[in-house]
């Protein structure tokens, strides 16, 4: 049994057009996508903007309801679960966003951001201030942040450090699946490598399953075990990272590869 399985997942958006919305057009943002992800695997999801990769990630995260098809997590169809069960399951799948400037609350210290995340799982720490503080410090150190900065606000950190806070927050509820949506594209090239190394280490240490979304094939190649290439809502190619990189089959993959700036 695969850890996560998408079965014929489809999401259509309908847009009203014309005089008082008499006409409609349908956008097939995600169109009949099926794939499996094994436990501990990193799947890279690549494509140009507008290809549907963000919609797909929102479907996996249960932030959107699919038009048809289903998301199966550890053998359970998430759509069959009652809402309060899904809320409980939510701890198991967490997201890391592209822009650490926008995804962290500027009015919350690192401590409050991370303790909130930790308390979703470890409710017993609610009345144990010391234990909670230790858990937050531990989390900060795990992602390579100095725990002396526990009372600082996001604006006091650099871009790379902020992304580390965002990663720590995602790890707080001890998830099994992490969905990282362009986690390094807002960062300097020199910082990108640090964050990619960190994500890989965490995967190895915590046996995380990860979906890594990016438009940059060169980044995905490094981190992902397998790569799925999306275009117009469909998966046009999927395979081992090196295979996709070295002998691309689809036109979309070839286009993405040719767009990577080359050192000459």
């Amino acid at each position, binding site marked *: 049994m695969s850890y996560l399985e998408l079965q014929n997942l489809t999401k259509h958006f309908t847009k009203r057009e014309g005089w008082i919305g008499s006409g409609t057009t349908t956008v097939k943002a995600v169109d009949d996508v099926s794939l499996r992800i094994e436990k501990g695997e990193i799947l890279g999801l690549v494509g140009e903007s507008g290809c549907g990769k963000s919609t797909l990630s929102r479907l996996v995260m249960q932030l959107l309801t699919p038009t048809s098809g289903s998301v199966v997590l550890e053998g359970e169809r998430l759509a069959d679960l009652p809402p309060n069960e899904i809320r409980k399951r939510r701890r198991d799948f967490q997201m890391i966003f592209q822009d650490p400037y926008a995804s962290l609350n500027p009015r919350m210290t690192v401590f409050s951001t991370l303790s909130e995340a930790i308390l979703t799982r470890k409710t017993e720490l609610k009345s144990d201030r010391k234990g909670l503080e230790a858990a937050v410090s531990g989390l900060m150190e795990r992602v390579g942040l100095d725990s002396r900065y526990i009372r600082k606000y996001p604006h006091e950190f650099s871009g790379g450090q902020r992304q580390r806070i965002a990663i720590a927050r995602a790890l707080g509820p001890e998830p099994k699946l992490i969905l990282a949506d362009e986690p390094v594209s807002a960062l300097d090239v*020199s910082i990108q490598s640090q964050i990619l*190394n960190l994500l890989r280490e965490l995967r190895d240490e915590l046996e995380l399953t990860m979906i890594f979304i990016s438009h940059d094939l060169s980044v995905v190649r490094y981190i992902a075990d397998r790569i799925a290439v999306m275009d117009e809502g469909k998966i046009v190619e999927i395979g081992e990272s090196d295979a996709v990189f070295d002998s691309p089959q689809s036109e979309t993959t070839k286009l993405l590869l040719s767009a990577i*700036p080359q050192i000459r």
Partner: protein
Amino acid sequence: MALLEVNDLRTYFHTREGVVKAVDGVSFKVEAGETVGIVGESGSGKSVTCYSLLQLIPQPPGRIEGGTAKFGDLDLLSLGESEIRKVRGKRIGLIFQDPMTSLNPYLKISTQLMEPLLIHGKISKKEALERAIAELDAVGIPEPEKRIHSYPHEFSGGMRQRVMIAMALITRPEILIADEPTTALDVTIQRQVLDLIKSRQEELGTAVIFITHDLAVVSEVCDQVNVMYAGRFVERADVKTLFSSPRHAYTRALQRSIPALQSRGGKLYTIPGLPPNLAQGIEGCAFAPRCPEHEGMPEHSAVRPALTELEPGHWVQDCPACLAVKLTA
């Protein structure tokens, strides 16, 4: 004579935490029609360098402490407000990283595209509109005569950056400053925008100062490259030399940290530590704390090393340690 000759530019910010020497003695030349790159990490001072040239530094807290920038018979740094306005947007154009925030969402593209023409030249509105349409066409916007009456939100990110390029080039500037123009874009769109800048540059003969943190982008577009670290240039060479035989430890470390060039599976190379805090004075070689030192290596320079010419056209900060470091894979 060079089109632009910057000499010993120093821009400091006077903050409560002390004097931040964001640009601390930078010199470079731009020849007509060539592309000069400035590469460095966030906070290295590359944007401040360019904004100083157009006096776009908020003063206070910023202040241009010294230096000259010879542009024809003008010194850009000592021009008064009314004179620099005749240069800014007319003879030197600018494009920014984020086309979402640099276009005014309330104004039609037509208004924003015609504005530089109406301000800088004696031209009728009708003529200005015609030229604006022609310019949109030149940057590859389909149906320009229709699209020009749209608002920025009706364009995609890549299209907005095309509009920005049209806006910057419509006055036919001699120099275009491009500040991370593709950083906010997808790789495929980045490719299109880079190609567009290159082709427009060739058609118009504009010189370009290209600011980026991405060495791979530099290698595609630039003729000359300056590598900036902690407010100074650590290395300067033509693009071929810089990539085939980089000399400074920082340049080499930057090159090694590009994910695209590393093989799968292993750990990615990263530069240890963080860039120095510029509010605290730097003594000696600024890169010393992050330098991958090894045994038998000479000491880092105790005074801030000067840029010296190793070979004709290849300049490096003269720190014995940074020049001797071995970076093995």
